[in-house]
């Protein structure tokens, strides 16, 4: 084990950079000295789940069979973003984007594309196949409006090889900071860039570092929040899986800036691939002396340890996370004192989120003006969103701040499947709110989202259509917060439980109009009095749905009806006596014996129709599925 010098770092970059550039769209036609083609296969969780490991094994076998193993390189990369079409692979230099690849397609792709040089059009992402030939995937709707900063290396490099990262100027921001900048310069650069925390609240990162630097102490800590607990958000995971060295580099820069020698990454144990790649990255950084003593020969010392989160949402809150790293129940502490003064092990500490860190090396290298040139007045740079729910292109997108919801959902996301109507977009997870169609053209940034009753959160963006009941969604999030409340403070522990009970009452058709007012009052009480961010934001899903979708609540309370047909207790199954031919299939299959024959025979029919006894009906829906004459409907 030996520390590499700055000179050696530069040599590695010179050797690797052409190799990596080969995988850029604009480099089409350039040659790589070692391989004539690169196949980038997505090794993120989404594509791994749909079988990308098997594809790599099959590719290796087929390349060997065709004698191409020395000409074509296979790279297992991080996430390309378009998870809906996984597993995904891209063949360079053409940049051919193959989607939903199966093992059976591999022999043909190897033979036709790699041996004969003709991309297999039928297996390509269909949007790249146009009348005028095959277009680059960066020209498609999904990628065209994106600007990948935090995700720049995801899908481009192998996260398990430090040399590839160095080939993309990796660790050169650290070099610049250690050799050319004073800690104050780093802080000023971050302040000038306008970078705000990507974990939720949007606190200016430069300010956070400045506070922590100001406290004198022999020991300080740099922490990274990779405990992405927000259900439906997976941007941090993708960065960790696709570009782990960027996080290590940024944390080392943070260590230099605030005067810390130890860092901790608190990562979800449920992310096995991310944990494994982080460990590999840490080991490699040690090997090169980019972590440890005397980094790059500058005398600076910094190390990073991994801590696995054990599945508690509240540990996303900064003081709770630190309490958890200390080996306790992850309960938040009252602030002040803020972590900048007394954080981990009672020492001055900073905590930033993965995506925030991922931006920092770029800001150092390209300058604050470049970063501040993107985004809106108060929210600079880009934001990664995890698009999910009722949308065609589920996946990960990175757009400049200020992009509208319409652009994200309709253009990049490709709209709602099955011709359904958009109802709401949920941002900010259990702390956020639902945004209705009327705010489709609001530019997304921290302040605008708060103004319309939601929040940025970590960047989950779940799309809902007309089949989703907004009362049910509010109930879903409250169930989540009730489960995840740590129980330390009363407003959260008891308040959220009471809120959930009222929502349950409403979805069961037992609610009153008075309950709606009571709920609203309780929401404001919890917001004002809960100890930490989890409790203070827990009522947001209720408040925002009450505000924008009050008519749905009223339908549940007054008409005892669920307009979306989701709340089981409010559903009624009814038989249209004129369509029913009286075959009796539903009667025989009803598990509750709730269907009986009437004495009404519809004109033209021979048998009497049936009817459903609403009191006996358990709303299982078996009759609806069985009726071949569409005589039964759900109301």
């Amino acid at each position, binding site marked *: 084990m030996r520390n590499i010098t700055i000179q050696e770092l530069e040599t590695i970059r010179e050797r690797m950079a052409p190799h990596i550039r080969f995988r850029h769209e604009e480099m089409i036609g350039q040659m790589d000295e070692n391989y004539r083609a690169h196949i980038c296969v997505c090794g993120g*969780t*989404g594509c791994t*789940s*749909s079988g990308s490991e098997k594809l790599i094994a099959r590719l290796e076998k087929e390349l060997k069979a065709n004698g191409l193993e020395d000409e074509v390189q296979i790279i297992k990369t991080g996430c390309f973003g378009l*998870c*809906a*079409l*996984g597993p995904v692979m891209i063949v360079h230099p053409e940049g051919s984007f193959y989607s939903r690849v199966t093992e059976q397609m591999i022999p043909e792709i190897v033979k036709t594309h790699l041996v004969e040089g003709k991309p297999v059009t039928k297996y390509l992402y269909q949007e790249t196949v146009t009348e005028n030939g095959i277009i680059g995937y960066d020209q498609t709707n999904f990628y065209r409006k994106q600007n990948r900063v935090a995700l720049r290396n995801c899908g481009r490099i192998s996260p398990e090889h430090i040399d590839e990262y160095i080939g993309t100027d990796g660790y050169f921001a650290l070099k610049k900071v250690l050799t050319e900048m004073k800690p104050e310069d780093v802080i000023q650069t971050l302040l000038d860039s306008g970078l705000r925390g990507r974990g939720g609240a949007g606190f200016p990162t430069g300010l956070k570092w400045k506070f922590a630097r100001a406290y004198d102490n022999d020991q300080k800590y740099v922490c990274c929040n990779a405990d992405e*607990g*927000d*259900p*439906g*958000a*997976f941007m941090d*995971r993708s960065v960790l899986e696709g570009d782990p060295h960027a996080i290590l580099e940024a944390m080392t820069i943070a260590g230099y800036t605030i005067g810390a020698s130890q860092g901790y990454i608190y990562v979800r*144990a*449920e*992310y096995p691939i991310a944990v494994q790649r982080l460990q590999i990255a840490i080991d490699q950084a040690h090997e090169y002396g980019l972590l440890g003593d005397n980094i790059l020969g500058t005398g600076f010392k910094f190390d990073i340890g991994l*801590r*696995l989160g*054990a*599945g*508690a*949402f509240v540990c996303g809150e900064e003081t709770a996370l630190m309490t*958890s*790293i*200390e*080996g*306790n*129940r*992850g309960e938040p502490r009252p602030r002040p004192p803020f972590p900048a003064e007394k954080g981990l*092990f009672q020492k001055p500490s900073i905590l930033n989120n993965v995506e925030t860190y991922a931006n920092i090396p770029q800001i150092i290298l390209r300058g604050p003006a470049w970063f501040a040139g993107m985004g809106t007045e108060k929210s600079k740079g880009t934001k990664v969103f*995890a698009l*999910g*729910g*009722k949308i065609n292109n*589920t*996946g990960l997108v990175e757009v400049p701040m200020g992009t509208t919801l319409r652009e994200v959902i309709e253009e990049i996301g490709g709209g709602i499947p099955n011709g359904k109507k958009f109802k709401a977009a*949920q941002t900010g*997870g259990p702390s956020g709110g639902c945004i209705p169609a009327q705010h489709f053209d609001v530019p997304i940034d921290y302040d605008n989202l708060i103004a319309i009753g939601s929040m940025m959160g970590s960047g*989950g963006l*779940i*799309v*809902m259509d007309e089949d*989703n009941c907004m009362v049910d*969604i509010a109930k*879903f*999030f409250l169930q*989540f917060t009730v*489960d995840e409340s*740590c*129980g330390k403070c009363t407003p959260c522990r008891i308040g959220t439980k009471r809120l959930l009970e009222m929502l349950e009452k409403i979805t069961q058709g037992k609610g009153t109009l008075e309950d709606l007012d009571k709920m609203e009052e309780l929401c404001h009480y919890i917001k004002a009095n809960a100890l930490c961010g989890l409790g203070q934001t827990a009522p947001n899903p209720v408040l925002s749905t009450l505000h924008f979708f009050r008519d749905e609540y009223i339908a549940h309370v007054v008409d005892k009806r669920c307009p979306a047909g989701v709340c089981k207790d409010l559903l009624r199954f009814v038989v249209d006596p004129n369509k029913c031919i009286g075959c009796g299939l539903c009667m025989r299959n009803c598990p509750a014996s709730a269907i009986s024959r009437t004495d009404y025979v519809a004109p033209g029919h021979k048998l009497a129709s049936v009817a459903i006894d609403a009191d006996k009906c358990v709303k299982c829906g078996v009759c609806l599925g069985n009726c071949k004459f569409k005589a039964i409907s759900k109301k």
Partner: protein
Amino acid sequence: MACKVTTVPFRGTKEQEQKLLAMIDELKDQPGALMPIMQKAQEIYGYLPIEVQTMISDRTGIPLEKIYGIATFYAQFALAPKGSYRCSVCLGTACYVKGAQAVYDKLSELLGIHEGECTADGKFSLEACRCVGACGLAPVMMINDDVYGRLTPDMLQGILDKYN
């Protein structure tokens, strides 16, 4: 965070105990060691019954009530043994809006068990989890390390049959 005390008798072996004690000795001096110790202990035994918690307490000198407090706080720690096939249905938001609840309910009905329980033959256990990060495949469930995506309730019996 309901606590379910298991009725299954503890069947730890001598080898497991040696492994546990060696691991504790290796980790116990680093700051905040308790959580990593408990995570590794769960890897060794598959769950954290009171017997294992007591051994950790005896070796580290950390009070048992603190260990129990942590074991019941975090969702990752199991106080009851899990089945040979752990079924976990994702009830994250992206899966939920695409009908994960119906998948979960059907699976619970097919297995005849509820959240956190194990079938009588010790074969299957059922849990709901929050987002495995495969939102593109929603709704998703995992059986041990196998991921099943784009699920509908009527696919479940066929999937379970593979494990029978």
